[in-house]
């Protein structure tokens, strides 16, 4: 069997639950850490980014409207499917990041566990961040966290799977939808993750994944009127301030976490909090 020719995969974008090529028709070569050619990935464009925002907006009402229990189960299901693809992820992470198999295994295991951790948050966020407000008057007042909306996520450039999962999971756990620009040079684990999402119960459009040049696509998302928030984690240093300035045009929430973030450390709630709004509701009390 050793002389069998393997079936090579075409790596495409993931938008609205489908796997289109870039509308631009462009692709770019992806190599391993040593520079050996691995595959051609789709090189996403401004139009792809806009299509992804439309898909994310379309999915928002449904995803944010599901019960927290349901969202938790859908996300847990993703972890189940991730576990089934564990060996594939280990191979891809090892190749993409140039780490030994043992290290890759540890990164993949942490990534899957991270997904489970966030899946478990869906139905606890409101209890932990919400409140009943003891106002000085005959009113019942309560505050509850709600998802911000469509989040543009610039995924970490180095940590191709653990970092990616650490930035996507908190965004969607609370009911946001997102457009993710993957690591530019290490996109293959992200494309495999999109296949996992497509074969789990995550509705199309909740996560949209674009491969390509971060610096080319990110400005269109930062200035897009229908994007509510921006995670700068994977943004190149040279364009971070410009992206923030663009984001100010529509008062986007901006998460400024640095590219140097260590994703092996157990997270706190800050990535969840970054993409939540607080809604306070009042009603009079009386007979």
């Amino acid at each position, binding site marked *: 069997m050793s002389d069998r020719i393997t079936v090579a995969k075409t790596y495409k974008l993931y938008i609205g639950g489908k796997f289109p090529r870039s509308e631009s028709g462009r692709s770019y070569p992806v190599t391993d850490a040593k520079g050996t050619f691995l595959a051609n990935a789709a090189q996403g464009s401004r139009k792809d980014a806009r299509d992804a925002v439309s898909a994310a907006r379309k999915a928002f009402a449904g995803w944010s409207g599901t019960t927290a229990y349901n969202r938790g189960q859908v996300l847990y299901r993703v972890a189940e499917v991730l576990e089934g693809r564990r060996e594939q992820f280990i191979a891809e992470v090892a190749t993409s990041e140039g780490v030994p198999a043992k290290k890759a295994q540890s990164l993949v295991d942490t990534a899957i566990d991270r997904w489970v951790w966030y899946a478990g948050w869906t139905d606890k966020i409101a209890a932990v961040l919400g409140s009943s407000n003891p106002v*000085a*008057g005959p009113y019942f007042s309560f*505050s509850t966290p709600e998802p*911000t909306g469509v989040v543009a996520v610039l995924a970490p450039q180095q940590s191709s799977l653990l970092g990616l999962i650490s930035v996507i999971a908190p965004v969607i756990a609370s009911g946001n939808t997102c457009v993710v620009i993957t690591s530019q040079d290490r996109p293959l684990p992200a494309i495999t993750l999109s296949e996992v999402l497509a074969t789990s119960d995550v509705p199309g459009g909740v996560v949209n994944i674009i491969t390509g040049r971060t610096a080319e696509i990110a400005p269109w998302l930062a200035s897009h009127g229908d994007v509510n928030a921006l995670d700068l984690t994977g943004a190149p240093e040279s364009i971070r301030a410009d992206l*923030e300035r663009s984001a*100010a045009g529509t*008062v986007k929430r901006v998460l400024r976490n640095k590219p140097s973030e260590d994703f092996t450390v157990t997270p706190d709630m800050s990535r969840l909090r970054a993409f939540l709004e607080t*809604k*306070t509701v*009042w009603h009079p009390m009386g007979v």
Partner: protein
Amino acid sequence: MWEYAPAPESRDIANLKPSYKMFVDGKFVEGTGEPLKTINPATEEVLAEVSTASQSDVDIAVKAARRAYDRVWSKMPGSERAKYIYRIARQIQERGRELAVLESLDNGKPIKESRDVDVPTAASHFFYHAGWADKLGYAGYGPDPKPLGVAGQVIPWNFPLLMAAWKIAPALACGNTVVLKPAETTPLTALVLADIIQQCDLPPGVVNIIPGAGDVGAALVGHADVDKVAFTGSTDVGKVIQGQLAGTSKKLTLELGGKAANIVFDDAPLDQAVEGIVNGIFFNQGHVCCAGSRLLVQESIADELVEKLHARVSTLRVGDPLDKNTDVGAINSREQLAKIKELTESAEAEGATRWTSSCPLPDKGFFFAPTVFSGVSQAMRIAREEIFGPVLSVLTFRTPEEAVAKANNTPYGLSAGVWTEKGSRILWMAQRMRAGVVWSNTFNRFDPTAPFGGYQESGFGREGGRTGLEAYLDV
């Protein structure tokens, strides 16, 4: 309408001084900026001359705040900070009448509002946050959350003292020091608050108050040694500030404009709803970022409701802010009055039907008679732009889904109102409205325990409650 004899509050209570200085490093000092004259918008007379900060004064104030932070405030146990903040709350209560009268003189708002809302709520913000100072470890941000450092705060003219309280109280409770710029047209009560802070013996530099115009605000938020910026004001300026802070590590919270929908269903108790609508748009002359400036009324009751509304609005007394009978006071400035007039003219030009109360208006000062536009469509400027004045736009809807769609059809998202007797519908609506505050069968309620702030272009970050502490903690 019944005739009422005037019942004016004495302006002597305000202890108005001919001139006011800025408050830096625990002392009242002359600023080196061009002094400004603050006027009474109800009479256009000059109330006082106020010294303003120059760029170098901003730097001096920030340095004072930094010193106070490094040497005193960040090292002080929360339990000790708390006692200072409690003192401020008590002094505001003690000097409540003085503050209320001064606020009405400088801002133009009716005395019944400054007396019953602005001043007591300002005191309650200090009292509430004082208690947090030694309990921050219980706020959900880890066992020992740290302050940010020096907070630069810029506030608007619509609730001068109350906004100062909203800004200063949580900043101090969390262990930050403050440089605050009050609005150009309403600096006086913030400077009396400075006097209170001095009398409370707060360590010098913990709170600094520097009057001035927008350039002072820009210098403050742009100062390299400011760690935290909090701004309340227009969305346009908020965007400029957010852009200005791009690429820095300054933490930012913004509380910006709004175009709130106040939604009335056909089963709502109409008389009660009318009171809520009136409160929603005519409270504080409509100078409220969360004002219910878009009335969405279910089509089947629209005519009846608008008729009742006209009758009720006709009884509003517009005039002397110091008169205890006054319902609607003076527009804060000539500029704001011009903006309101311009936008209402655009509504007429675009085909909305104007109804304006025939109430008498004073001969002097900046006044605008309460106005209701009906036949407003969503495309009209009056339905899209923040008016910040006593002007209501009436639109209609047929189904709850349509009400939600129209309410959310705005880049803003600060507040919303819903009036219906049906509990399940209230909760259904509240869940779908993309707004930071939803008042159901009430409107314009504020409390330090209840987080307040916007979605979308109404800003980010919250003020009040446990959630509000995040804005002043390094988390």
